[in-house]
Each structure stands twice: as structure tokens, then as C-alpha cells.
């Protein structure tokens, strides 16, 4: 448990020799487009997802740009009011269903889960490929809906407006959401079975990296929750197309029923979005502070706690929708409960940082940004979950700021942290250290400037989704739009330096950050089946023995290139540098 480690290190197995670069590796084994489109390799499928969701992130970003630019003037700067509705709906639908939900599970999860647990692939490689195609089919419907003129209901699709009155392309859009849901279920199922059935010898549940635990919890939500949104969207389409009364009160339906069903999925879905980010952060914080995680079991179980409790608080989105007063009290109380596991995580991360040997490479900057912004987002969630304050704040920009703090500040930063952390593993190349740190700084600054003014506006009563506003809100909206342009620039930078790194980046070693996980034990980029067939990994200890300086196979950690960075030429040339094991004396607490 508590091992005081001083500068005198116990004798441990020497660091493994640098694994010979895999010839061939998963990337160069075959270059044809066909080989990519028919691949069943979890790593290639991860890359396919990476490319597709990047496209949707850019498309969603353009929609956001339209929204923010239009809000520059109190009565709409660039587009008509109708087009404004379609822009924010496109933004929400693209970002949520086609970017955030698949972001970490389908890209990093696909790529890393088998490697982290020492397996050759996911349990169902073909199902995995199918999930990508299903995702694309769903996305095509979404794109169709948008290109054909868009949807004007907001991403929440509330009837009776969406089923009776709206003349926009509700059906193809909703159908796209319906289809892409199945891809989410397939990914979740795959990850869950893989974690149960395919762990390497010695990889007990108590030794799983926390990224695996958090994706396991995410998969549970995906499996249980997504079918409900599928049914709900079908009911909505049935009502809209066939006029069968389910939600529309004019024909005997109940609009509040839709909100119940919608949020029964969509509240847990916000945890589909945040839990994977939390997993990434647990990996990155430990690595860049050279410490074991503080309270492994608490962090692992709090993921499961969030997954379970997350299903019991959906109606906090409906406090003013006409639900029963008693029920609202109950849901307000239950919403408070979910803050407990969230806070457990934050405290444990802080405990992990305490007296660590912290270095500030890009993944660490993003991860620290995650922690700070998630705390703000989570705490404002509590304001909203308080019944009385929500009556004032509901449907204002306060809500918009809240969920952007958790989703953009939290999850997108978590995704960036993960992408930067594992990029050398995925591509075999290092990216520019300097530019990546600059990008992290720009993103965090731009983020604050964009969303802090929205808290103020919302508190003073500016409603969300309105294209017009009184003059008093002008200055805040201008600040927010200015921030959004900085944020947009920050997001564009990685597109450039990451792409450039593919061609000009320094070759990455197998374990450039001197990290402990199994995924770092194979060469970068990994060979087709991840590990050398003859030496499949055997796990002997927990995932974060940084203080002892050993990886999960009980061998020493390689010296990171960043050790003693003053005389390290790679540092001066702006390459990424890693902290190395035991950079200075580390005090282990817990």
C-alpha cells in the first residue's frame, strides 16, 4: 500500500530493450484503400473512426461558427431567424451524436482497450467493422437532413413541435440518430465482452488501467441506454409520419412522455461523453506526475457508480416541464447524489498530483484543463439540479455554459489529452512539443473567454436558442464570439501539427512517455496483432507503479528523452519530451 520510495531504488528487472520496430506494422502492412475498408484490425478501425469524427467535428464547428457570428448583433448579424434555428440544431446533433459519443470509445477505446489488457484484438472484430459502417450510414442520413435544408427543432427534438408543426427534415435526421445508435451499442458490447473475456494472464480486475474501467462503465450505459433512444425516435417518426398519437396531445399523446424517454437516454448519454474522458485523465495525470493513482479502487468504482446512478436523475431536465412537484423533489435529490462519485474522482486526481514530479507536456496540459473545467461544469450542474435555482436558470445561457464546460471543457479536452498522449503509439511519430503546448494554452484561454460570459448572461436571463437579445447582453455576446474564434484557432492548430508530424515528426520509441501500461510494451506503431506472438504479455502488478519505476510486466521503465532536459537536444528542437521515471525524489502518499 504505502511504499515510501527514496532515491535508493530497490533492484528491479532492467528496462526492456527497445522493441525492434515492427516490420511490418499495422499501418504499412498494406496500403490499399480496400484493405482499410475491409479491415477487421481494431487499430485500423480506430483510425477510420478518427478520420470520420474529425470531419463531423469540423462540420459541427462550422455550424457553431454560424451561431456565434449571428449573435454578434442584437438582432442577428448574418442569417435569418429560421436559418439560425437550423444552425444550432445542426451543431448540437453533429457534435453530440456524431462526434462526442463516438470520440473516445470508438477511436481511443477501439485502439487501446485490446492493447491495454494484452489482447490481440477486440472480441468481435467483424462486429467492430460493422459498427463503423452503421455509424457512417447513420451519419449519411444526418448529412442528408442537413443538406436538404436542416432541422429546426433543436437537438432535443421535443414534440409536438417536431412531430406536428416543424416543416424541416425531422425524419431523416431522427432516422440518422436512430441508426448511429446501433453503432454505439455494437462498440459498447464489443468493449464489454473484450474486458470480460480477453484479459492477459495476471490482468485481474484490480489491475485494469482506469481507462479500461471507465470505458467498461461507458459500455454499460451504451448497452442499456441506447435502445431507449432508439424506441423513442421510432415512436417520434411513427407519430410524425403516420399521425398515431403518442406524444402530441391533440391526438391523445403526452408530450412529457417524450421528455421522460428522451432524457432517460440523454442524461446517461452525457456520462457516455464524460466517463471516457475521465479515464484518459487518470492515465495522463499519473504518467506526467510519476505517481501511482491516489485511491485506485475509489476511482474505478466511482465510474461504475456514475454509470448506475446516472440512470436515476434524468428528470432534472424537466423541472419546469409540468412534471409532478414531488417527483421533481425526488429527482433534484437524486441529482445531488451523482456529484458524489464525480467529486471522488476529482479529489483522487488532486491527491495524485500532490507532491508528484509534474512535467507539462501537451497531454498533461489538456488533462489539467479537463480537471479544472470539469469542476466548474460539475458544480454549476449542482446549481441547476437545485429545484429552486433551476426555475430561474432553466433554458438560459447558464445551462448552455454548464454543459459546454463539461462537454467541451471536459470531454473535448480529455479527448485531446488522449489523442496527444497516444498519438506516438498510434502513428509512430512525435509531434511538435512547442506547438502542442501552445495549442493547449490557446484552447483553454479561448474556452474561458467563450463560456464564462455565458454564465453571466444566463444568470441575467438571456434565454438559449433565441436569435435576438436586448442591448444589455451585447458586450457579453461579443466577448463570447471573440473567445469562440480563439477556440476555433486552437482546434485548427492540432490539425496542422499532427498532420505534419506524420511526415516530418521524429520517430517515436515504443514507450516515449516512459509509461507503465501494456500498450507501451509493443513497438510504435504496433504490429498487426499488437504483441509478439511468442511473448504475449503477463501482468504482475497494478497499472501505475511509477514510483517503483516498473511497468505492468514488472520491468523497469525506459529513461524518457526528457530526463535532464537541459542537455537533451530533442528538447531544444521542440520535440516532445517525456518526464522519465523518478525525475526527482517522489513522496508516495497512498
Amino acid at each position, binding site marked *: 500500500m504505502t511504499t515510501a520510495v527514496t532515491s535508493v531504488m530497490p533492484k528491479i528487472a532492467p528496462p526492456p530493450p527497445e522493441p525492434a520496430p515492427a516490420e511490418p506494422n499495422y499501418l504499412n502492412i498494406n496500403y490499399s484503400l480496400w484493405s482499410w475498408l475491409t479491415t*477487421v484490425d481494431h487499430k485500423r478501425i480506430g483510425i477510420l473512426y478518427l478520420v470520420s469524427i474529425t470531419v463531423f467535428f469540423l462540420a459541427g464547428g462550422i455550424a457553431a461558427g454560424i451561431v456565434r457570428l449571428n449573435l454578434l448583433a442584437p438582432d442577428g448579424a448574418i442569417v435569418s431567424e429560421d436559418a439560425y434555428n437550423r444552425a444550432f440544431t445542426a451543431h448540437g446533433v453533429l457534435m453530440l451524436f456524431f462526434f462526442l459519443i463516438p470520440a473516445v470509445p470508438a477511436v481511443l477505446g477501439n485502439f487501446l482497450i485490446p492493447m491495454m489488457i494484452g*489482447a*490481440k*484484438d477486440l*472480441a468481435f*472484430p*467483424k462486429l467492430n467493422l460493422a459498427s463503423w459502417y452503421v455509424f457512417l450510414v447513420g451519419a449519411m442520413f444526418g448529412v442528408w437532413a442537413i443538406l436538404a435544408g436542416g432541422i429546426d427543432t433543436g437537438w432535443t427534438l421535443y414534440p409536438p413541435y417536431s412531430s406536428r408543426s416543424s416543416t424541416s427534415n425531422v425524419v431523416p435526421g431522427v432516422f440518422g440518430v436512430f441508426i448511429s445508435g446501433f453503432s454505439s451499442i455494437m462498440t459498447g458490447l464489443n468493449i464489454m465482452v473484450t474486458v470480460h473475456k*480477453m484479459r492477459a494472464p495476471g490482468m485481474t480486475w484490480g489491475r485494469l488501467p482506469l481507462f479500461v474501467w471507465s470505458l467498461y462503465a461507458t459500455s454499460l450505459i451504451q448497452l*442499456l441506454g441506447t435502445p*431507449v433512444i432508439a424506441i423513442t425516435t421510432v415512436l417520434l417518426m411513427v407519430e410524425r409520419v403516420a399521425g398515431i398519437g403518442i406524444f402530441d396531445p391533440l391526438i391523445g399523446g403526452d408530450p*412529457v412522455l417524450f421528455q*421522460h424517454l428522451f432524457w*432517460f437516454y440523454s442524461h446517461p448519454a452525457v456520462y457516455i461523453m464524460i466517463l471516457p474522458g475521465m479515464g484518459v485523465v487518470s492515465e495522463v495525470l499519473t504518467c506526467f506526475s510519476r505517481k501511482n493513482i491516489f485511491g485506485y479502487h475509489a476511482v474505478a468504482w466511482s465510474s461504475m457508480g456514475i454509470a448506475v446512478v446516472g*440512470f*436515476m436523475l*434524468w*428528470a432534472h431536465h424537466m423541472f419546469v416541464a*409540468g*412534471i*409532478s*412537484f*414531488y*417527483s421533481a423533489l*425526488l*429527482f433534484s435529490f437524486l441529482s445531488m447524489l451523482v456529484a458524489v462519485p464525480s467529486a471522488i474522482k476529482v479529489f483522487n486526481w488532486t491527491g495524485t498530483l500532490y507532491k508528484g514530479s509534474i512535467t507539462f507536456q501537451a497531454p498533461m496540459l489538456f488533462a489539467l484543463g479537463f480537471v479544472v473545467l470539469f469542476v466548474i461544469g460539475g458544480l454549476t450542474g449542482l446549481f441547476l439540479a437545485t429545484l429552486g435555482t433551476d426555475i430561474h436558470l432553466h433554458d438560459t445561457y447558464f445551462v448552455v455554459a454548464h454543459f459546454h464546460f463539461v462537454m467541451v471543457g471536459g470531454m473535448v479536452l480529455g479527448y485531446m489529452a488522449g489523442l496527444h498522449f497516444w498519438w506516438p503509439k498510434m502513428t509512430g511519430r512525435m509531434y511538435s512539443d512547442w506547438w502542442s503546448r501552445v495549442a493547449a494554452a490557446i484552447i483553454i484561454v479561448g474556452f474561458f473567454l467563450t463560456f464564462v460570459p455565458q454564465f453571466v448572461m444566463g444568470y441575467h436571463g438571456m434565454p438559449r436558442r433565441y436569435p435576438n437579445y436586448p442591448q444589455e447582453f451585447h458586450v457579453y455576446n461579443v466577448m463570447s464570439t471573440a473567445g469562440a474564434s480563439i477556440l476555433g484557432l486552437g482546434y485548427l492548430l492540432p490539425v496542422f501539427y499532427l498532420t505534419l508530424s506524420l511526415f516530418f515528426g521524429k520517430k517515436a520509441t515504443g514507450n516515449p512517455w516512459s509509461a507503465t501500461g501494456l500498450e507501451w510494451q509493443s513497438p510504435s506503431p504496433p504490429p498487426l*496483432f499488437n504483441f509478439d506472438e511468442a511473448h504475449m504479455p503477463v501482468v504482475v502488478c497494478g497499472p501505475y507503479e511509477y514510483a517503483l519505476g516498473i511497468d505492468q510486466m514488472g520491468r523497469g521503465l525506459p529513461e524518457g528523452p526528457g530526463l535532464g532536459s537541459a542537455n537533451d537536444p530533442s528538447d531544444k528542437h521542440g520535440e516532445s519530451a517525456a518526464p522519465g521515471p523518478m525525475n526527482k525524489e517522489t513522496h508516495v502518499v497512498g
Partner: protein
Amino acid sequence: MSSDPNQTPATPPGHNDVLGHVDSPPTLIMVWVAVLALFGLTVALSSSGMFGKYTLFVQLAIGTVQAGLVAYHFMHLRHGDRVVVLTALASIFWMGILFVLFMSDYMSRSRVMG
């Protein structure tokens, strides 16, 4: 399945292996016909008005039986070991959460506070 790297070559048909006991086509067809017949019954009930205001309950009961048949036969719960059956039951429990919390709204909505 040769491209599937996880397939261990010689898996003996264990008790957990669905392929170990394939359901006979007649059984499957009979279950299918039964599910369809129950579907017909639901449709018939909805226009007959036989059970008056209780029609909905009867229909839901029929639906439950249908779902049970599908789970038991088509989804192979029949051959599942304890863990599989427990998992299936857990998902019913989870649906219970949905219904109970739903009802916390619908059943207390008309009460006046204070």
C-alpha cells in the same frame, strides 16, 4: 473466420457454447408462429373492446409473454448459464428503475402541494 485472430482453433463445445446445442428448426418455427399468433391476438383485442378499460393491461401481458418467448428461445436464455440468466434479470430490474421513477411523476402529478 480465418481472419479472426482471437479464434482459438480447437474450442471443444463447452456447456457455454451455443453451437453445442442447436435448436431444431421445428421448435424455432413453432415459437415463431406462437409469437405471430399472439401478435394477431393483440390486434384483434384492440378492435373488439372485449376487456373494456382493461384492454391495455391484457395487451401488455401478451406483449410480456411474446418478449419472454423471444428471450428464452431466440436469444438462447434456455441454454444460458447462471451468469447469463442473472444478466438478463438485471436488465429487467433496470427497466424497473425506469418504470418506478416514471410513476413517481405520473402518479403524483395531480396532487396539490402544501
